[in-house]
C-alpha cells in the first residue's frame, strides 16, 4: 500500500467531510497555497465561544483536501481559544502520513485558513 495515498486519505479526498457553504456563518477566511495556486476557504458558525459547525470550500490536492476533511471533524466543538493554540504538529499527527517538506503546506493549508478566521493570524502554522 502507498505510504502517502492510504485508503482513508483517498476516501477523504473523494468524499470530503464538511465541505460546502455554511450560511449564515460567523467567521470566514480564504487562503491560497502559493506553491500550486490551490484555494481553500472556510465558514465557521460559533456558539458559546466554540466552533458549532464548519465547512470548507475550494480545490486542492489529495493531501490538502483530506487534511481539511479530517481536521473538520476534530475542529467541531473545539473552543476558539484551543483553535488558536493548534500548531503544525497537531495537523501532521492527525493526518497520520509521512508528509515531505514540499507537501507540508498542502497539509497545513486548512489549519492556516481556520486560524486566520478565528484569530486573524494568517501566518503558516509553525
Amino acid at each position, binding site marked *: 500500500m502507498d505510504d502517502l*495515498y492510504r485508503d482513508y486519505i483517498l476516501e477523504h479526498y473523494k468524499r470530503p467531510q464538511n465541505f460546502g457553504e455554511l450560511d449564515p456563518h460567523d467567521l470566514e477566511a480564504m487562503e491560497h497555497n502559493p506553491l500550486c495556486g*490551490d484555494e481553500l476557504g472556510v465558514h465557521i458558525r460559533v456558539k458559546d465561544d466554540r466552533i458549532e459547525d464548519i465547512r470548507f470550500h475550494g480545490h486542492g*490536492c*489529495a493531501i490538502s483536501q483530506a487534511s481539511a476533511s479530517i481536521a473538520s471533524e476534530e475542529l467541531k466543538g473545539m473552543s476558539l481559544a484551543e483553535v488558536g493554540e493548534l500548531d503544525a504538529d497537531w495537523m501532521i499527527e492527525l493526518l497520520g502520513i509521512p508528509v515531505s517538506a514540499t*507537501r507540508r503546506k498542502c497539509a497545513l493549508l486548512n489549519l492556516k485558513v481556520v486560524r486566520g478566521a478565528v484569530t486573524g493570524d494568517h501566518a503558516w502554522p509553525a
Partner: protein
Amino acid sequence: MTAASGGGAGVRADFPILARQFGGRPLIYLDSGATSQKPQAVIDAVAAHLGERNANVHRGVYPLAQEADAAFEGARERIATFTGADPRTTIFTKNVTEAINLVAYAWGRANVHEGDAVLVTQMEHHANLVPWQVLCRERGAELRYLEVDERGELSLDALDAELARGDVRLAAFAHVSNVLGTINPVAEMCARVRAAGAMSLVDGAQAVPQMGVDVEQVGADFYAWTGHKALGPTGIGVLHGRRELLEEMEPFLTGGDMISSVDFEGATWNELPWKFEAGTPPVAEAVGLAAAVDYLSALGMARVREHERSLTAYMLKEFARVPGLRVVGPPEAEHRGGLVSFTLQGIHPHDVAELCSREGVCIRAGHHCAQPLMRCLGVGATARASVGVYNDRADVDVLVSSLLAAREVFALDGPDEA
C-alpha cells in the same frame, strides 16, 4: 536524440546527472521547461574557468585578468552569434525576469505615460506580466491583454485591433508559452507592432533552448532569454535590444562597471553593453553558457527542434491512451514547443507529479507562474512534462505507465470518475 539526429547515444551520456538513481530507479527528467540539465562540456567549462582563469573582468592589467576578460567577452560573442545578435547589444542579466525588469524600468519609465497602454497576452509567465502591471500602475497607463483562444493560440486580428486603438506603446509576448507550449508567430507580431509605431518585447525563455532563434529575423525591439533553460548555468540571462533604444535609455541598475567616469557630483555612463551591467557580471556563468550554445550548435538547432517536435508528437499520441487525460494547448506538435501541460480527471496535478516521482519521473505541477492563464483555462493547476535534447521515447513510455499507475493508486476505473 539519435545518432542520425546529430547526437547519438552520446547525447544522453553527455549529461552526468542522468546517471543518478532515485529509489533504485533511473532519473527520467521531464522538467526541462523549468530548467535544463547540463552537459559535461558546460560543467567542465565552468570548472576550468574557476580553476584556471578566474579574475575580475575589465580593469585588471595582469595576464590572468586579461585571460578572464577574453573569456568573458569571447563568451558574449559566441552567445550573441548563437542568436544572430550583435555582441554590443547583447546584455547579460541575472535571468529573463531581470531582463524584462530592465526594459520596464529603463525604457518603460521614460516612455510610458498616463493614457498610454501596454499590451501583453493572457499566456504570459509572471515574469512578462508583473513588471508591466507595476509599470502601468505607476504611470497611470492601461495594461491590456490579448486573448488566448480555445486552441491556446493568439489572434493576429485581435492584435491589429488592439494596435489600431493607437495608444499601445509596447507589446510584450512569449515566443513559446511555458504552459500551453504554443509557438507564437512572433516575427509577424513584431512587424505589426512596429508598423503601429509601438515597441515589442519577446520572452524567448522557452524558445531559444529548442529552436533556432535569429533575433534579427524575429525583429523584436527587445528579446530576452535565459541560460539555465538552454543547458547553461543559472544566474545568467540575456537581453538583446535594438541599438538606438539601448543608446537612448538611462541605466537600470547603477554602480560599478557601468560608468565611464564618476566624480562627487555625478557620473557618465559606459558604452554598450556594459552600461546595463552594473557590478561584477556573471563571468563563469557566461563562460558556461557559451559552452552550452556551442554544444547546441554542434547538435544543430534544426535537429534539436525536430527531436523535440517528434518527441512531443509521440507524447501527445501516447497521452491519448490514458483515460481522463486532458491536454491543454494546441493539439498538433507542429504548433508546439517541447512541452505538454495536462490534467488527469480525478487526480490533482500535485498528486500526479508525486506519483510520477515514485517511478523516477520528474514533471512539474502547479500554476507554472501563469495564474491568470490558469483561470482562463478553468483549472487551478496542471501537470507539465517538458523535454530536452537528452530525452527519448522510452522516457515518455515510463511517464505514461506512471500515469496509468497513478490512476490505479487513486482507484479510478473509468475516464469520468471524479
